[in-house]
């Protein structure tokens, strides 16, 4: 199977992503932690990453979550980004929730 190594900065882990698979999906299937996982549809924005090194191709991402400026700045939603080369990426959203003051929020 063709694919690429993905290096996750800040958490310091690495995983293999098949060429035709979104980065987030590959990460989840391998049980790797590092990027928050949400809707897997490019709508909710929790899986935001910066591609520090390498090339990706992205499917539709919500403009409410990734601005044009962010896109120019190599910021993507990991659930919509497919690798075109080995990648070094940085998760931009927190995995751990800040303390819930009111049970839900």
């Amino acid at each position, binding site marked *: 199977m063709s694919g690429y190594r993905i290096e996750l900065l800040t958490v310091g882990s690495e995983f293999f992503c098949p060429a035709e698979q979104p980065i987030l999906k590959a990460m989840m299937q391998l049980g790797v932690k590092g990027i*928050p*996982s*949400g*809707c*897997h*549809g*490019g*709508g*909710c924005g*929790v899986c935001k990453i910066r591609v520090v090194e390498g090339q990706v191709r992205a*499917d*539709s*991402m*919500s*403009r*409410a*979550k990734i601005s044009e400026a962010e896109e120019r700045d190599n910021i993507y939603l990991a659930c919509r980004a497919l690798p075109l080369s080995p990648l070094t990426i940085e998760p931009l959203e927190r995995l751990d*929730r800040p303390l*819930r003051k*009111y*049970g*839900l*929020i």
Partner: protein
Amino acid sequence: MGVMRIGHVNLRVMDMDAALRHYRDVLGLLVQGSDDSGAFYLKGWDEWDKYSVMLSPSDRAGMNHVAYKVEYDSDLDLFKDRLAEHGVDALLEPASHLPFCGRSLRFSLPSGHEMYLYADKERVGKAVGDQNPDPWPDGLKGAGAHWLDHVALQCPFDPEKGVNTVADNCRLLREALGFYLSEQVLVGPDADIQAVAFLFRTSTPHDIAFLPAPTCGIHHASFFLDGWSDVLKAADVMAKNRVKIDVTPTRHGITRGETIYFFDPSGNRNETFAGLGYLAQPDMPPITWTEENLWRGIFYHTGEAHDSFTSVYT
């Protein structure tokens, strides 16, 4: 007179072909047509009005508006006045402003969501007809959802800054639109902050739910199934179609509903919901869940917090 039920939800989708495959082939809704703007209209087989889901092409996910159906056209004038008494400026829109509908009343909830009331919508009938009908039609796809059951909305909530639009919405719907409170969650040191509110107009536990959130959005749109075995089959259909499931089949404590949470291809959360829970009536004492037990209320079996429940929405 008064509000009868949820009429439709208008969702934004980023890829219409993928959205149609989801709402038609996975949920099993029936496509009723499209318009020049590229929007598609769908209904459940058991619904008689032309559509309960309107999908609009967009560069983002989320909800444009939700609409509730009232019994009489004159109710719209009455509710316009009642909303004004509560400081909400509602606009009467002409027929066809809401596609395939008569005139409508448009306003914003305190949470920022756009809501409509309308009395008339083009009627197409149930898939089984209304003469000596069979209990279900042939050729249903996927989960074969009966109808759009309710929406749950994410409402700005920050009590320290004096913001609680869950409570504001709840008060407005009860006082101006005649909704009843079925269940609520009270939080905070004095257990007096309403963080969750479930309201109804039908005889089911909820026709709308308000949840606390950092920003305005939609938590989910929910579709009705008959029972637990239909819920399990719906999950099989989702797995077959590689739908992203958020929460596998389980039971809510609140409403007693049997549920699956999952996402459409643009990331909007859906629910398939079975079991009518209990008979909701105007004189039923509202049920209160406390802060320590609120996750038991949300996911009855585990009783544990589920991270994506509050942080993931569109």
